[in-house]
């Protein structure tokens, strides 16, 4: 049955904390039940951590909003137990095309190789994404969600955070060991603490028209510069599920944001693109401007900012929601370890270090795209036009055309949690990189490597036979062990280990070995968020122990 997630309303329910004589204490409170807050709560709950999630509203996303979800984000959602539904419902795409005036300029494939479970992107309305996350969250007993609960004041002391929560029945107070502020770009918590997000606003306005129609455009990202149907401006087209199409029209700084959202202005713009005979109806209309900005630090004592509250980018590149989900996966395992007493509080400083660097990478890419799409001075426009003109017959210029550099996960190359390589390795799986997928044969048949990595620290060991699996021995934390052997080399076939034993996978097409530049003996240590933190050419329990201590902030 199809659920109309946009129409769902969640009841306010009185809770015992409201009648408590002294404020009730919670180990972690997450504020904001958007993609970032929900992902944080689910990830914490999967680690066995009790979470209280507060949201000031009684509904999911109004309008389709963020629609492009990147491969890495889907892999995070797979680990959170709800990726399959998103891919099933979403529109899968890998190709982008750029047009200048009447002419196609170039196309690009964001996932030009096989052997990955997930595509480069799926497009999915934000209300579906939030709905699927919510369904998953509600299946986890560790998560309590309180709707219509607005945080109006925040005070921080050495031993915790005090929140004032406003409800339809008045205010009450709560205590938290840690507070995650996933409360959006206007973050009331950021304001309550007197903090700021700073950066640049671009002098341009854009119109989003989501229309419902029968159309035969392919499931690709189409971007026009100066098309005949919308002269001197750009247009972006994306397909969404349920026959909905996202059309994003650049309007320029002088456009009237109130008038431009009226149907009598929007409909002719859409009709100019589609032609006079294509029937359509407007699903959602929005006018926006954007800024590239971030907070100076994402950690302020016991308050951690994640997603739009911490940083903002232009939409060209789909780096907003995607990077927010990566904030969530970075933060959750660290917070769970700290709350369990298995890592020092200083581990949370690495959240700040890694995700501030990631935000800078996203802002850099987003700003460069914006500088191309929205020229900020006469020279920018001249070079943009020159690049597009040359791109028709000069390959080099096509590489300069920038209609958005689409979201890729950050490699935490400078992270203090990494153990630097002591031996030579080639390829992309450097310390700090998110693990790459590969097809494997598992106990249940054809499967994917990433499904066996993460949620706990994982040792990924490559060998020619399954006879001598790595024995991590006595480690300060539970570590999963995954052994990858060539096809046919697993005696008795691949098998999934119960906790404390080794899972044996066969490298179905040899791609795992290739992507990890592995030889017999090669061993990777992966973090609970599937990022590499150390690797060696042979398995050495003492080196694993040292790397694990470094990756949990116990040694510098």
């Amino acid at each position, binding site marked *: 049955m199809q659920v109309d997630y946009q129409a769902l309303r969640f009841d306010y329910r009185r809770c015992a904390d409201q009648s408590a004589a002294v404020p009730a204490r919670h180990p972690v409170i997450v504020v904001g039940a958007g993609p970032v807050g929900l992902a944080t709560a689910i990830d914490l709950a999967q680690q066995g951590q009790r979470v209280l999630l507060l949201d000031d509203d009684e509904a999911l996303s109004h309008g389709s909003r963020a629609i492009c979800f990147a491969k890495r984000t889907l892999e995070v959602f797979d680990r959170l137990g709800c990726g399959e539904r998103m891919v099933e419902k979403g529109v899968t795409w890998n190709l982008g095309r750029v047009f200048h005036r009447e002419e196609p300029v170039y196309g690009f494939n964001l996932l030009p190789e096989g052997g990955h479970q997930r595509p480069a992107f799926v497009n999915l309305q934000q209300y579906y994404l939030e709905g699927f996350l919510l369904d998953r969250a509600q299946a986890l007993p560790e998560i309590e969600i309180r709707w219509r609960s607005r945080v109006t004041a925040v005070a921080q002391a050495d031993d915790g955070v005090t929140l004032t929560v406003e409800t339809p029945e008045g205010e009450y107070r709560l205590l938290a060991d840690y507070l995650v502020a996933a409360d959006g770009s206007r973050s009331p918590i950021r304001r309550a603490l007197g903090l700021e997000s700073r950066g*640049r*606003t671009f002098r341009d306005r854009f119109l989003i028209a989501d229309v419902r129609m029968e159309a035969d455009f392919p499931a690709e990202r189409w971007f026009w510069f100066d098309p005949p149907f919308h002269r001197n401006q750009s247009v972006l087209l994306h397909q969404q599920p349920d026959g909905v199409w996202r059309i994003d029209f650049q309007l320029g700084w002088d456009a009237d944001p109130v008038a431009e959202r009226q149907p009598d202005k929007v409909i002719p713009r859409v009709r100019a693109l589609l032609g006079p005979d294509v029937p359509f109806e407007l699903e959602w209309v929005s006018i926006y401007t954007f800024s590239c900005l971030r907070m100076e630090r994402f950690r302020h004592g016991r308050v951690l900012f994640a997603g739009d509250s911490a940083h903002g980018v232009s939409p060209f590149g789909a780096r907003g929601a995607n990077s927010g989900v990566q904030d969530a996966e970075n933060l959750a395992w660290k917070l769970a370890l700290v709350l369990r007493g298995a890592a020092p509080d200083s581990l949370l400083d690495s959240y700040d270090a890694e995700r501030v660097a990631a935000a800078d990478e996203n802002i850099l890419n987003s700003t460069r795209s914006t500088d191309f799409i929205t020229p900020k001075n006469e020279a920018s426009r001249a070079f943009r036009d*020159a690049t597009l003109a*040359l791109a028709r017959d000069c390959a080099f*210029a096509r590489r300069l055309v920038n209609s958005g550099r689409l979201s890729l996960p950050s490699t935490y190359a400078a992270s203090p949690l990494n153990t630097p390589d002591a031996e030579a390795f080639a390829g992309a799986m450097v310390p700090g990189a998110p693990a790459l997928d590969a097809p494997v044969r598992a106990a249940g048949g054809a499967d994917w490597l990433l499904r066996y990595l993460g949620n706990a620290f994982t040792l990924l060991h490559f060998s020619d036979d399954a006879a001598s699996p790595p024995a991590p021995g006595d480690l300060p934390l539970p570590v999963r062990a995954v052994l990858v052997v060539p096809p046919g080399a697993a005696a008795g076939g691949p098998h999934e280990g119960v906790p404390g034993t080794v899972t044996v996978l066969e490298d179905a097409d040899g791609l795992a070995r290739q992507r990890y530049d592995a030889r017999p003996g090669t061993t990777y240590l992966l973090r609970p968020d599937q990022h590499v933190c150390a690797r060696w050419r042979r398995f050495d329990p003492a080196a694993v122990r040292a790397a694990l201590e470094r990756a949990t902030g116990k040694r510098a």
Partner: protein
Amino acid sequence: MLNTEPNIAAPDDFYEALLAIHQDLLPAQSRLVDAKLILLLSNHIGDPEVLRQAMAKAREGIVPAGQDAILAARA
């Protein structure tokens, strides 16, 4: 290393050809031609250090008298 010593065999011929591509053009048309020329030559040179030195040399001594169309953002 950016070469600022004479490197063009027939400088007057070159200069004449450079002006000739701008003949009868409006300023905006010339701007486009120059931009294309810069992009083509930059790609031909390729060496990022030479390009950086050339950009710095071109910008030397020019004090900004305009303003980009961006605003400071605070939230």
